C-alpha cells in the first residue's frame, strides 16, 4: 500500500483535529452531561435537543450556518475581527470550533448515561458522609463512569475523523491546514486516483472497525462485571 506525503499530511492533520476536539469536548461536555444527568430544570429538554441536533442534521447544513456565523459578516466573525484576529473560516481553528459542535452528542450522551446510572442513592450516601458535590464527582461518579468516559472519548475521536460535510463547508480544502483524510480521499476520487483512494479508505475502514470492536468488548466486559 502506497501513501504519498500529502496523504501522511492529511492523516496527521486528521489525528490532530480529532485529538484537539476530543480534549476540548472532554472539558466542555463533562459538566454539561453532569448537569443534564442531575437537573430537574425545564431547560433540560431544550438543551438535550440542541445537543442531539448534529445527529439528525445534514453536516452541510451545520457547516453552512457555521460559515455564516464565523464569516466576516457573521456575529462571531465580527467579534473576532474586532479583536484583531484572523477570520475563522478556512482555518484549523474554525474547523475545531465546528467539529466541537458536530461531535457534541457523541461525547455528551455516553457521559450522561454513565452519570445517570450511578444513581442518586449513592450520591446521597456520599453527601451524608460529608462529601461536597465536587468531591463526590471525583471520588464516586468519575471512577464509576470510567467505561462511559472511554466510550465517549473514542466515539468523539472516531466521529471527528469521519466528518466530511462540515469540514468542506467551513474548512475548505487547504493542504496542511484543513485538508483532512476524508477530504483527501474525495480529492483522490475526483482525480480518478482510485488506488490512492483505496489505500487511505482501507486504512480508515480498518481503524474504525478496530476502535468500535474495542468499545463493544469494553461494554460486554462491564455488563459481565455487573
Amino acid at each position, binding site marked *: 500500500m502506497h501513501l504519498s506525503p500529502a496523504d501522511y499530511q492529511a492523516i496527521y492533520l486528521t489525528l490532530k483535529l480529532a485529538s484537539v476536539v476530543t480534549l476540548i469536548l472532554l472539558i466542555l461536555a463533562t459538566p454539561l452531561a453532569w448537569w443534564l444527568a442531575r437537573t430537574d430544570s425545564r431547560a433540560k429538554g431544550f438543551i438535550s435537543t440542541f445537543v442531539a441536533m448534529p445527529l439528525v442534521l445534514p453536516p452541510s447544513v451545520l457547516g453552512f450556518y457555521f460559515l455564516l456565523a464565523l464569516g466576516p459578516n457573521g456575529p462571531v466573525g465580527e467579534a473576532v475581527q474586532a479583536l484583531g484576529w484572523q477570520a475563522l473560516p478556512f482555518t484549523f481553528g474554525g474547523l475545531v470550533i465546528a467539529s466541537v459542535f458536530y461531535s457534541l452528542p457523541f461525547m455528551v450522551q455516553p457521559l450522561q448515561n454513565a452519570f445517570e446510572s450511578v444513581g442518586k442513592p449513592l450520591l446521597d450516601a456520599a453527601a*451524608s458522609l*460529608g462529601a461536597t458535590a465536587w468531591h463526590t464527582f471525583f471520588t464516586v461518579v468519575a471512577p*464509576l463512569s470510567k467505561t462511559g468516559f472511554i466510550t465517549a472519548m473514542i466515539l468523539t475521536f472516531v466521529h471527528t475523523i469521519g466528518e466530511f460535510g462540515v469540514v468542506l463547508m467551513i474548512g475548505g480544502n487547504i493542504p496542511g491546514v484543513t485538508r483532512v483524510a476524508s477530504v483527501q480521499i474525495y480529492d483522490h476520487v475526483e482525480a480518478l486516483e482510485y488506488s490512492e483512494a483505496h489505500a487511505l479508505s482501507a486504512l480508515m475502514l480498518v481503524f474504525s472497525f478496530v476502535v468500535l470492536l474495542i468499545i463493544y468488548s469494553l461494554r460486554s466486559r462491564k455488563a459481565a462485571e455487573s
Partner: protein
Amino acid sequence: MMALHFKSQRGNFDFDVALNLPVLGTLGIYGPSGAGKSTLLNMIAGITKPDTGYLTLDHQALFHSENRINTPIHKRHIGLVFQDSRLFPHLTVKDNLCYGYRLLAPAERRLGFAQIVELLELTPLLEQKPHALSGGQKQRVALGRALLTSPRLLLMDEPLASLDTRLKQQILPFLRRIKNELNIPMIYVSHAIDEILYLTSEIAMIDQGRLLTQGVFHEVMQQIPALSLAQSLGLENVLHGQVQAHLPDEGYTVTTLGGQLLRIPLIRAAIGEAVSVSIAASNVALSRQKIEGVTIQNQLAGMVLDIQTIQHKTLVTIQLENSNAHLMAEVTANSVQHLQLQPKSKLYCLIKTQSIHPLAILE
C-alpha cells in the same frame, strides 16, 4: 435536643409531623410501609426538602423555611444507614469505611478507625470489595462507615429489612453495642416493633404522614390510635432476660426474668449472658390460677395494668411480678368477662416455649 416540624405535599401524600425531643437518646420510629417514616428521616438528613417547617438540632437551626435556612446534607454531620447499604462498589471495605473519616479534620474524629473496626468485627473484610460481601456484612460496613464520620445523630432507615431472620439476629447485637458504648443519639426507623423494642422503649408512631403518638412504648400502647396501628402490624412483646441454664436434651434454654423463669427455645449463649426475646401478643394466654398438667411450660405471674378493647379484640397489659417488664396479651372480650379481669387482678401469663423468638444471637 431536637425539635422539628415538617410539612410537605407530594401528590396525594400529605405529610405533617412535629417532634420535640428535649433529650435525644435512642428513638424508634414505628409505622406501616408508606406511613412517611423514610420521608421524615430524609427530611432530617437533608435529602428531601419539606415545603415548610423547621429543624433544630442541639440549638442549631438546620432547616427553617421562613428564615431560608437549609443546611446542605454534607454539612449536617448526621450519619445515615439505608436499607440498601449503598456502599461504593469501586472501593474496598477499608476505603468505604474511610470515605467520610478522611473528610473530617483529625480534631473532629471522636471515634477511631480501629475502635469501629473492632466493635463491628470488620477486620477480616477490610480488603474485600462490596460485591463479595453478604447482606449482613454490607450493613455492618455501612454502619461503620456512618459511625466513622463521628455523627452527632445516627439515622437508620430499616437497616435490617432486607435481611433474613438469622442475619437480623446477628446484626441486632451490634446495634445495641453502638447504643451502649458510643453514646451517639440514634433514630431507628422500622415497621418491626420487636427490632425497635430490642434497642429502645422510646418510640414515635407514624401513620399516613402524621405523628400518632410519642413516648415510652407501654404507655403509648394505652392509646387507642397507637394500639390499633400496632395491632394491624402484629403486636410483639420484647422481654430482656438472663441465661440461667441450657437443657439441650429437652430442647430449651432457661432464662430468668426478675426472679421468674422463662423457658425459651435452645440458643447458644453463655450462662449469665443477657438475652432478648419477642413474643407475639396473640401467643400469650391468661389464667387466674396456675395450671397443672398442661404442655405450656411458661406461667409468669403478673398483675393487670390496663384493659383496652378495640374492634372485637381485647388487649390486656400486664406488669410481671418482681419486674418492671410489661407483657401484652391479645384475648377475646368474652374471656376477659369470664375471668372477671380488671386492673390490679392477679393472673398468670401462659406462653408456649416454641412461640418465643430469640431476638439477637452472637455467633
